[in-house]
Every structure is written in structure tokens, then in C-alpha cells.
């Protein structure tokens, strides 16, 4: 891939709009003379694998795919960098909800209770909130029962369907608590999935970061630098660019930062959910 004239980006097709988004970015980059193409994957694991096999230069990674990449790179003696992220990727939180009339008033009260979560690989609706509960003494699957809603596996929770179903399970009484992203709490409140006054927030995680553009050592530096420069030059005031930013859910691109992944890092270390994948890929890449 080195010496190539075209920057290849990988992204996961969690929704049909992903094609619209990257087609739009391709047109934008072409206008600015950056040769750019993209490859879509059905799941993040396939994307991480393709990245390490050298099939793409930049991966639009979920936070979990970032940690997978980081661990694989460390084991292989390679370096990995988060080069950019959305403004909306910074300082997210997750909330643990209970029904308003529930007798659960502190995290300790979740002992022995059933907790609805999103997809098993969702940082925001499963791994980070369950990691927090474990940290506070409620170990998943031992101190409490976990009820996962794995609607679209492999997408690392990008599809919000699982969170919506988890909330409905809570409201129906099939679970005593539910874990969702803070932004989905507002969305579900606005759309009526969470009726006003029906639930209350039992706990909220500290802030964490979400997606980033990941590059591995050996990526074509000039193309990556131009890609990054063009990202940061995208202005919300530009009517040609604005629809792309709206679709991707940001107002501006920011430099990547890696300080916001510590909670997820701790959670996957505790739950060992990515160990097998990381070990397998390391073995294959050696």
C-alpha cells in the first residue's frame, strides 16, 4: 500500500446512510485534489483486521476498535495514532436508568437485579456502564443479571436499536435498570420512548471519548497529512460541506485525543471481551 496515490479509508456500514456520507466526502476531497476512496465493512473486527493487513490507510474506528487496534499494534511492536475526531466524540457519558417508582436508590441496590444493556460490543450501552458497576462493586453476571439486546452485532453499538429495546424492557418491567448513552436519553425523552417522569437516572459515568480516525505506522504520510488538513478546514458555514457534517453528526473536526478511552480500556481488561480477537489477529499478523 505504501507508495500508493490514493488514500483508502475504511468505515463500518452500520446504516445505509454511510454510503451517502463517504460518497459525499469522496466528492469533497476530489474537489480539493485528494485522491480518496473508501471500503465498507460489515463489522469493526473485519475492519481492524483489514487495517493490519494493509488494505486501508485510515480506519474510522469505534472506541472499541481503537483499543483493539492499540493492543494489536502494541503486541506487534507497531505504532497506532488517532489523528482526528468529531467535536461530538468528546466527553460523552452513559446513564443507568431505573423506573421512577423503583426502590433502587443507589448503585448497591442493583445487587441481584436484572440490567438491560445494548449490544455486547457497545462501549456506551454495555461495556463502559457495566465496567462502572463492576468498579462500584456490582459485578455483572454474578452480583447482577445482564440482559443484552444484541440487535446488530459487530457494529460496536453504533446502531441505537439495542438501546431503545433495552429502555422498553425497563419500562415493561423485564429489567430493573437499563444502560444507555446520554444523548439517547435526550433523544428517547424527546420522541416519547422515555415518557416524562417514568424513569430516573440512578448513576452516570464520568466522561469518555468516542470514535476516531486511526492510522498505523507506514501509512502514506503526505496523503494522511492532506486528509487531516482538509478535515480541519471543513467549515460548517460552507453550504457544500454542511450536509456532510450534519450527516456525520458534528460541527467541526478536532485533533484526535486518546485520554478519553481509559474507562473502556479498564472495562475490556476486566471483562476480557476482546482478548481472543486480539490474540488471534496478533498470531495471524506475526
Amino acid at each position, binding site marked *: 500500500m505504501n507508495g500508493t496515490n490514493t488514500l483508502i479509508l475504511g468505515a463500518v456500514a452500520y446504516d445505509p446512510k454511510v454510503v451517502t456520507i463517504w460518497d459525499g466526502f469522496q466528492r469533497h476531497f476530489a474537489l480539493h485534489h485528494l485522491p480518496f476512496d473508501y471500503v465498507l465493512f460489515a463489522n469493526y473486527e473485519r475492519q481492524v483486521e483489514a487495517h493490519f493487513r494493509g488494505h486501508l490507510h485510515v480506519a474510522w474506528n469505534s472506541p472499541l476498535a481503537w483499543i483493539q487496534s492499540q493492543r494489536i499494534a502494541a503486541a506487534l511492536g507497531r505504532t497506532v495514532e488517532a489523528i482526528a475526531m468529531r*467535536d*461530538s466524540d*468528546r*466527553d*460523552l*457519558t452513559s*446513564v443507568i436508568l431505573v423506573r421512577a417508582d423503583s426502590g433502587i436508590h443507589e448503585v448497591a441496590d442493583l445487587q441481584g437485579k436484572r440490567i438491560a444493556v445494548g449490544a455486547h460490543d457497545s462501549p456506551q450501552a454495555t461495556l463502559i456502564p457495566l465496567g462502572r458497576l463492576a468498579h462500584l462493586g456490582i459485578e455483572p453476571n454474578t452480583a447482577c443479571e445482564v440482559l443484552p439486546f444484541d440487535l446488530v452485532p459487530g457494529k460496536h453499538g453504533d446502531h441505537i436499536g439495542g438501546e431503545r429495546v433495552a429502555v422498553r424492557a425497563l419500562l415493561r418491567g423485564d429489567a430493573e435498570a437499563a444502560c444507555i448513552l*446520554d*444523548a439517547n*436519553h*435526550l433523544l428517547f*425523552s*424527546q420522541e416519547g420512548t422515555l415518557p*416524562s417522569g417514568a424513569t*430516573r*437516572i440512578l448513576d*452516570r459515568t464520568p466522561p469518555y471519548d468516542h470514535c476516531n480516525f486511526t492510522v498505523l505506522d507506514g501509512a502514506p504520510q503526505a496523503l494522511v497529512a492532506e486528509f487531516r488538513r482538509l478535515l480541519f478546514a471543513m*467549515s*460548517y*458555514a460552507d*453550504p*457544500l460541506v*454542511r*450536509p456532510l457534517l450534519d450527516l456525520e*453528526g458534528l*460541527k*467541526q473536526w478536532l485533533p484526535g485525543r486518546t485520554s478519553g478511552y481509559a474507562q473502556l480500556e479498564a472495562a475490556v481488561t476486566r471483562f476480557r471481551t476482546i482478548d481472543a480477537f486480539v490474540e488471534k489477529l496478533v498470531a495471524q499478523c506475526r
Partner: protein
Amino acid sequence: MQVELGDLGFEEGGHLLVKRALRAAAPGEAVAVMGCAPDLALHLEVWCRAEGHRFGCGPDGVLLVSRGAAEAARWEGAEPAGHADPRRPGAVAERAPLRWGLAARGATVEAGSPEFDFRLTGKIEVWADTAAALYAQAAAAQWNPATAIPWDAAFDLPAEVEDAVVQIMTYLVENETAALMVPSRFLAQLHPHFRKVMQLLAIQAADEARHVEVFTRRALLRRDRLGRSTAGGQASLKSLVEEPEFAIASFLLSVLGEGSFLVLLWFLERHAPDPVTEAVARLAAQDEARYVAFGLAHLRRHLEQDPGFRPRLALAARQRHETLRHTAGLNREVVDALLLVAAGGWDPGQLRLGHHRVVGLLADMDAARRNHLQRLGFADEEAAELSGLHTRNFM
């Protein structure tokens, strides 16, 4: 600045109060958001992240929001699509930009809105200052075919007179179908910036649809089948339906065609052998008058601004005549039916009277067409020539 939400949830409309306060705040000024809804802080923080506003907590725990740049950036380069009041100078654009799309005239249009493929974008082609009044009149004059016409009135016509009425109705349905299709086709090509013209074309199509209905219903009142449709009549109408240019189609249809047709409808009303025929002819004539008036008004305006367009209109009338010169034009059945209906019976004296009335009808149509052409600035001689070239199918 401070905004008080009380116990109102952010998702329950509290966001509107915050947005209003942010609009009123000076650049960089933090708005303190006060409230006791349980999820207020969470929702406010999430909303700020999504909207690009800055969120923070004051030392005393007060929630603070400062306006980000995104909201203003979205409306940079936005432009007004004319003005709602068409009397204001420049309110109706001389050429409506395609990027204004479906935006209401007077709305503020975000930059980057998609361009629509409207073909009729020039005010000169379509506009008439009277369009609004004609539309208002049309909207107020809508009649219900079920109640406006005395369908159950008792009458008894000789069989041949009834057949003649059926033949005339068959001809009218065909012509009104053309009168429906022509404005409908241009309606879909018209830039909606010319709102009143758009509305007028729409209500014209609806009026013509109703005419098709009542003429059909009259034809089938005493018979179970319609009359004849001729190749020549259809050829004449086809040349109208296929005319690609709005101003020329309007000239041929509204000024020359419907102008003649209007005289025919009043003739039928006057000599109708039964109250149902009389009513359908009268109601249709009242509607058609508006569209003749609109055609004349926008063409007059067009010609005032571009007198060089007049020879093109004349050419169109001549070309249509050339196209149709090898066709029979009006079918003999319709002329005979008109004569018989105007005669009212088989007595030779009645037939002669019917003949004179049809001759008078043709002369009245010619006079109407010449009058319309003169109002468009054609000299008497050319008006007479062009009127003489008009299709024998009347429309």
C-alpha cells in the same frame, strides 16, 4: 443573562427557552440556565455537545451555556426568496433562481439548498398582476356538480335532438380534457416562486376536471354511450397539448381556443334544449372566462416588455394552421348537432333558423378572437388574418 425553566423538562420545550435566551445573548456571553427538572443538566450538556455550544457549571453549580458558532454559520449566505408582498419592488424575481426550490416567496433560504429543475423561471413568461385576484375569484366560485345542476329536472327531447346534445357533450369532454392537460403540464414546470400563477393553473385544472365530469354526466343522462371522436378534432387538440412553450400554448389555448370556446358555451346556454345542458354550459362558461382573462393579462404584460415576441405568436398561429391544413378540423357531426340543437326541431323553418344561428356563432367566435388579438396589440388586418387561420375545431 439568565433563563428560568422552573420544573419544565428540557425535552418538554425547555430547549426553546434556552435557544431564545442564546439568541438574545451577546456574543461570548454565558446564559445561566436555572431549573429543577431532574434531567436538566444531562440534557443541556448533551444538547450543547450536539449543537456546538459551550457548556459548563459555575462555581455555585449553575448551568452555563455560551452560544457556539454553528447556528450563525448555518445561516451565513442565506438569502430571501423575494418578498411576501408582491407589490413591493423586487418582491417577485424577474428570474427565480433554481436554488430557491420550493421555498415560499418571502422565506429565507439556506445556502446550499438543492436546485430544482423548473423550466419556467422567468417572470416575463408567466406573470400577471391579476393572477391573485383571478385565483381568489376562482376559489370563491367553486361549485358542486351534485347540487349546482338540476340533474333531476323533467324534460323530454326528440330522440335526434338528444343525440345531438350527446355529440356536442362528447366534443366538449374531449376539448376540456385538453384544457386540463395543458395547464397541468406547465404547472409541473413552473417555478413555485410565482405562487399565484401556480395556484391559478392548479384551480384551472380542477375546474376543467369538473367540466369533464358534468359534460360526461349530461351526455349519459338519457343515453348509455357517448358520441363520436374524430381524427381531425384530435389532431387539432394534439397540436395544443404538445406545444412546449408556455406563452405560445397560452396564446393558442386561452386566447384563441378558449376565447372561441367561451362563445360556444354561451351559445349552448342560450339555445340549450333542456335545463341541464343550459346549466352545465353556463357554469363552465363562467369558469372559462377567468382563464381567457389570465391568458390575455400575462401575454399583454409579456408583450409590453418584449414587443418583439408578437411576431412569434403570429408565427405560432400560422404554423398551427399549416400543421392542421390537411385535417378535417371540426367534425361534421358536431356542426350538424349544433345546427339541430339551435334549430330545436325538424321543421324547415326551424332548420334555417338553426343554420343562421350557427353562422352567427362562427361570426361571434371570429369577432371574439379578433378582439383578443387587438387587445394584444395586433393590428386589425393581422388580427383578422390570424383569426381566420384559427382551427375549425374551435379550440
